[in-house]
């Protein structure tokens, strides 16, 4: 894939311009997921795409892989636990996964289902971090960038990052 230094200046500058928009778009898709098409999963995928783009453009040493890579697995766990905690909070309102945070009777507002928004954000965290961790685990520069051989698959990190996912959707 890319050398540690990343790609050409054109790619890097365009990425720098785009990245903010990509991340904000992903966040918005998740935030308004209960009202419009999208949701935590779609938003998480968009955000992961932003991080992957930046990793390809800036390389493994300076891109988000350098500072976010170690954090990704932790954030993945935090997202999953946050989802579970929010679901368990539903018991306060009667049953598992109940909407405990009250509802605005007016439809099509952000506040019309606050607990749904929080669930979407937890999924955003889980999917964004989990997918990026998976990308780093299967990308050749994940953990063993130093001894990459001539063959494209010669060495790679342990198959550690991607935990099987499935409950998000």
């Amino acid at each position: 894939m890319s050398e540690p230094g990343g790609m050409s200046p054109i790619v890097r500058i365009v990425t720098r311009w785009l990245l903010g928009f990509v991340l904000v778009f992903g966040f918005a898709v998740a935030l308004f997921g209960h009202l419009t098409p999208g949701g935590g999963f779609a938003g998480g995928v968009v955000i992961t795409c932003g991080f992957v783009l930046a990793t390809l453009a800036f390389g493994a040493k300076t891109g988000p892989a350098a500072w976010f890579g170690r954090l990704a697995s932790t954030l993945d766990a935090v997202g999953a636990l946050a989802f579970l905690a929010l679901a368990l909070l539903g018991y306060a309102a009667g049953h598992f996964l109940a909407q405990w945070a009250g509802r605005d009777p007016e439809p099509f507002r952000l506040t019309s289902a606050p607990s749904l928004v929080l669930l979407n954000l937890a999924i955003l965290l889980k999917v964004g971090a989990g997918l990026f961790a998976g990308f780093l685990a299967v990308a050749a520069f994940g953990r063993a960038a130093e001894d990459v051989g001539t063959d494209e698959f010669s060495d790679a990190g342990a198959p550690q990052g991607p935990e099987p996912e499935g409950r998000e959707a």
Partner: protein
Amino acid sequence: MVDLVPLFVAIPLAAAFLCLLLKRFGDRVCGAITLLGILAVLGLSLTAIAVGTDAVNMAGGYGVTMRDGRPFVAGIAIVLDGLARLFLLVVAVVGTAVVVYGFRYLERSTGRALYHVLLNLVFAGMTGAVLAGDVFNLFVFVEIASIASYALVAFGTGDREVEASFKYLLLGSIASLAILIGIAVLYAAGGFLNMADIAVAVREGRLGGAALLGASALFLFGFGLKAAMMPFHAWLPDAHPSAPAPISAVLSGLLIKTTGIYALVRVFFTILGPDPRVQTLLLVLGCVSMGAGVLLALGQDDLKRLLAYHSVSQMGFVLVGLGTGSALGVTAALFHAANHALFKSALFLSSGSLERMTGTRNLSEMGGLARRAPWTAAGTIGAALSISGIPPFNGFWSKLLILIALFSAGLPWAGTIAALTALLTLASFVKVQRKALFGALPERLAHVRDVPASMHVPVLVLSALCLLTFVLWPLGLGDVVQGAAATAQSADGQPPAIDSYLRLVLGRP
């Protein structure tokens, strides 16, 4: 109790991600979390049995009142009925033994925190699959358990482990996709995913014909592969021995039952209703699995591979019992599945102990270990007597019931094969005992020492449960097994079982 049913899934999931979050604090923390999680599940399942009422929970259920005044609840149905209670109990008991055993067994391997994460995910997938009230969530939970188990088979990261995991992954994925196509066909034809709705549609004749036949074939292939039914068994003798011993115990003791046998029972008895063609197929394939599995096991020298072939063979017993379709046959099959979970996981755990003591899995290199390791030997002998069908161990009772069911259903040929298989199983385990535990102690093994207590106590406890089954049966175990069979079986004309399930889920009178 109704509201607490989602906790069966939520606790192992929470334990899995807590382990992932806290992995830098070392594997002791993760081990403690896993143990607490499985103990909580054990407590919950014992509570569920003590309470004994069936329950439906619409997770995330959101009620809408339709125009004609009928309440309509959209949500994911989580159904706790007799069948689910039996499998939850088995998962919790065997899971606890496995977790305790795993502490010392894995003390020298790396990545123990991730082992705990994946093990908890397997537990969550199994409890979820058992509780799922619609076919798609059954599929999702089966997949969660399966994907975690693919990764666990490759845990050793050696040549054999990785190759076995790759094969297992490809075959398992084909099976999963077949199941998914079956679900899509059912949904396209009937418009339902909820098991009770599908069951009503099938019984009222709104769902049938080619769609039902195609979906049945796909489910039989998919879940049959996960249950290691004979033509689709090829992955099991590679995958189960390759995993570390506690994982082998989970895979052979629990996973092939929850994702295979349980799903077959649920789909073919509760949902699609009795179909003589499916039952004939189950009978024939079960006989093939029994006979061929035990014949292949006889020739094995590798202890874990031998045990894996015996799993194929014993699953054949369960399939044959289901194939009779009679109340007795289904009861016997479910009882044998539960018994197999106990003694096969005990055998796989003790195979791990023997491997750790001697450094080999080949029976020809062992010998005389009963003198050096009395506790491990006692546990192994107990479990081996169970699987061989020696009274009063539990394997004897369930095999006897299956034989009675076969002969009383007018299937003497299947009964003969089952009896011969039981004899060959006995012969095979006599060989194991003679080669590994008795006979001359090789020079090389003169100074081996028994494994620590946390490794032989789980095996002893499981073996003691095998021995004491006939005491536990009148004390409540019998009710649990018969309650499970009552939910599942659909014999004798009108199926009362489906009625109780429908009443439960649909709230019909």
